[in-house]
């Protein structure tokens, strides 16, 4: 008999998804699937538009990380114009992306994920959110919110608005950084540093204590990791080459150009999800599973290149290995990346180049095809455009970070289900709340953004179904 149990409040992930757990005749778990059930069609309706509009259009895919699309689109536009943007423009774009990484990671850690760690997996779901955190630890909640605000405010100082700015354009950026804005950033940096120090101390204590099991159970499996690195192998977020590192730490491929992505990345499609399944082509599907995002970036790089971030990276590697294979380590990686961002922001703001010289070049269309890349908070983002001789788009392909983590998210769900679902499942089984929350939290490690990755409006209810061998729905829980 099908049952629907509705649980409020809305879960802390974005978009529309459901999870199904498949059981055989004896009630043993055979398969788990993370379904993304929304469709948007950006790749299709952008066709026929001028490529110069793509930064503005694709930034509208998402309110969380419009900057990532803005930068990827602008960079693709640069390549269609066949120009190298001025140094000041490059540094201003870098500052924008660092602010974006900071604000998004702060949102993921403080607003979305920390209620699980700090309030407890079995705590009242109605209070297991940022408001519950405000009641339990107002100072920490306030600091986290202000850290996110720090990043958001830099976005506004640069682009004129916190979300959906169209500030980065093919050829550079529209406006420079003002002296007042620079002063504000320098003034707020110490507070941001103090907040991330506090969060790291708190998190490392939890990781060494009550979160050890989660570290082991939440998606700990071998896979490849992909991310941008500098030519010297340091942490990178906007330029450089792509590197793949395997679970043993070996560099599988290095300094790959985004232009050749079709040679090393394949995109598989499954009938039960609108989210595609990218994989590393040389290993085939699904063996070519790879992960992107903060953990992947820290796994592929040799080091970050700034002192405090490198100390924190060493501690992460000490606790979780190098490469760290547990998906739970994504949370730690986000905090380390915030450190890296804050150090890089300070260096950039003190760089005299940032305030001088040209910031925008004008040119005509010089190429008919280009691929642009940027490291979004959730991982590597590709934009691939083909245009006609008038600059109108004939083909658009967007490869989104959450999509590239699709296989890994499915495997994480499976591992958590194996750990927490009774084996075999007794007839008429009720799914315990703690199980539901942990599955959600497993997905949340990746900080998925499904509205972005399927290129859908609205909230993201999570539906969890327990299916018998004949496909009968034994139990169902719905959040949304």
């Amino acid at each position, binding site marked *: 008999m099908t049952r629907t149990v509705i649980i409020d409040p809305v879960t802390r992930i974005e978009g529309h998804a459901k999870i199904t757990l498949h059981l055989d005749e004896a009630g043993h778990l055979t398969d788990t699937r993370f379904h993304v059930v929304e469709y948007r069609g950006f790749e299709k309706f952008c066709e*026929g538009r*001028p490529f110069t*509009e793509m930064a503005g*259009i694709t930034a509208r895919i998402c309110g969380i990380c419009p900057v990532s699309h803005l930068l990827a689109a602008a960079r693709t536009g640069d390549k269609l114009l066949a120009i190298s943007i001025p140094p000041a423009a490059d540094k201003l774009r870098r500052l924008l992306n660092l602010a974006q990484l900071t604000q998004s990671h702060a949102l993921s850690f403080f607003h979305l994920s920390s209620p699980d760690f700090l309030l407890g997996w079995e705590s009242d779901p109605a209070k297991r959110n940022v408001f519950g955190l405000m009641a339990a630890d107002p100072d920490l909640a306030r600091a986290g919110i202000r850290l996110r605000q720090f990043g958001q405010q830099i976005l506004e100082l640069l682009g004129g608005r916190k979300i959906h700015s169209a500030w980065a354009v093919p050829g550079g950026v529209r406006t420079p950084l003002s002296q007042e804005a620079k002063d504000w950033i320098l003034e707020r940096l110490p507070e941001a540093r103090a907040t991330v120090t506090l969060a790291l101390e708190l998190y490392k204590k939890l990781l060494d204590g009550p979160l050890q099991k989660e570290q082991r159970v939440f998606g700990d499996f071998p896979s490849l990791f992909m991310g941008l690195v500098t030519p010297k192998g340091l942490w990178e977020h906007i330029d450089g080459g792509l590197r793949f590192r395997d679970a043993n730490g070996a560099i599988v491929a290095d300094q790959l150009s985004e232009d050749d992505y079709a040679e090393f990345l394949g995109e598989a499609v499954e009938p039960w999800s609108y989210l595609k399944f990218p994989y590393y082509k040389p290993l085939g599907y699904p063996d070519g599973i790879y992960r992107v995002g903060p953990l992947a970036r820290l796994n592929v790089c040799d080091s970050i290149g700034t002192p405090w971030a490198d100390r924190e990276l060493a501690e992460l590697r000490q606790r979780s290995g190098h490469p760290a294979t547990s998906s739970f380590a994504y949370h730690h990686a986000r905090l380390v990346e915030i450190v890296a961002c804050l150090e890089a922001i300070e260096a950039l703001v003190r760089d005299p180049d940032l305030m001088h010289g040209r910031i925008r070049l*004008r040119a005509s269309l010089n190429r008919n095809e280009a691929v642009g890349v940027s490291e979004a908070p959730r991982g590597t983002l590709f934009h691939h455009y083909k245009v006609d001789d008038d600059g109108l788009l004939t083909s658009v392909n967007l490869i989104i970070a959450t999509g590239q983590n699709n296989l890994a998210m499915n495997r994480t769900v499976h591992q958590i289900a194996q750990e927490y679902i009774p084996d075999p499942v007794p007839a008429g089984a009720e799914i315990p709340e703690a199980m539901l929350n942990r599955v959600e939290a497993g997905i949340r490690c990746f900080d998925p953004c499904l509205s972005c990755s399927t290129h859908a409006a609205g909230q993201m209810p999570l539906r969890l179904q327990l299916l018998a061998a004949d496909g009968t729905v034994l139990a169902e829980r719905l959040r949304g």
Partner: protein
Amino acid sequence: MSVVTLNVNGQDVAVPAGASLLEATRAAEANVPTLCHLEGLTPVSACRLCLVEVEGSGKLLPACSTAAAEGMVVHTHTPRLKEYRRMTVELIFAEGNHVCAVCVANTHCELQDMAVTVGMDHSRFPYQYPQRSVDASHPQFTLDHNRCILCTRCVRVCDEIEGAHVWDIGSRGGQCHIVAGLDEPWGQVQACTSCGKCVDVCPTGALFRNSDTTAEKHPNTTLPALLRTAREQRRWHNQ
């Protein structure tokens, strides 16, 4: 100079003979909205936003192309007119593809401003989502038919001010659209002087410079009046 006196919204005004009702309403500070009208260009009554009620007339009259006459009693903001104006703007939005958020003219668009002026918070008419094309064949400018409201400012400025007559209107009804030359790609029309006046006077983001991205278009709608006045008054040194 002879004048005519008339009454606008209860206020007596005097305007030069031959002046339009629009000029008379402006003399009375009545603020009648317009979209297709532009100082310096011949009025064409295309947008229907300047319709006013004139006592004794059985129909609504477009203020831009109706001459002010002695003794007229005019009403510019009756409930019926306000309703019609909002409806007109809603219809303009519904028949094209106007996506302000990503438009080059966002925050500098006369249609967007007009929606605010007439109090349009949504369209009561279903959006038609017509399949329209973009002509980016010109080396400097682009024409996006999705955003065109057929005001014909581009047609008139090119014909009356620049003298090149690149633009015309093609087809009828819902298929009606701006055409360049003999319905050719704009970049192939030899008559085009690439002066950009059509882009400057376009009230929406239908005509824009290729380098313009979201919200970067800044129109210059005072040009036609400036050029016409200068020409008529022979202000240039070589005239």
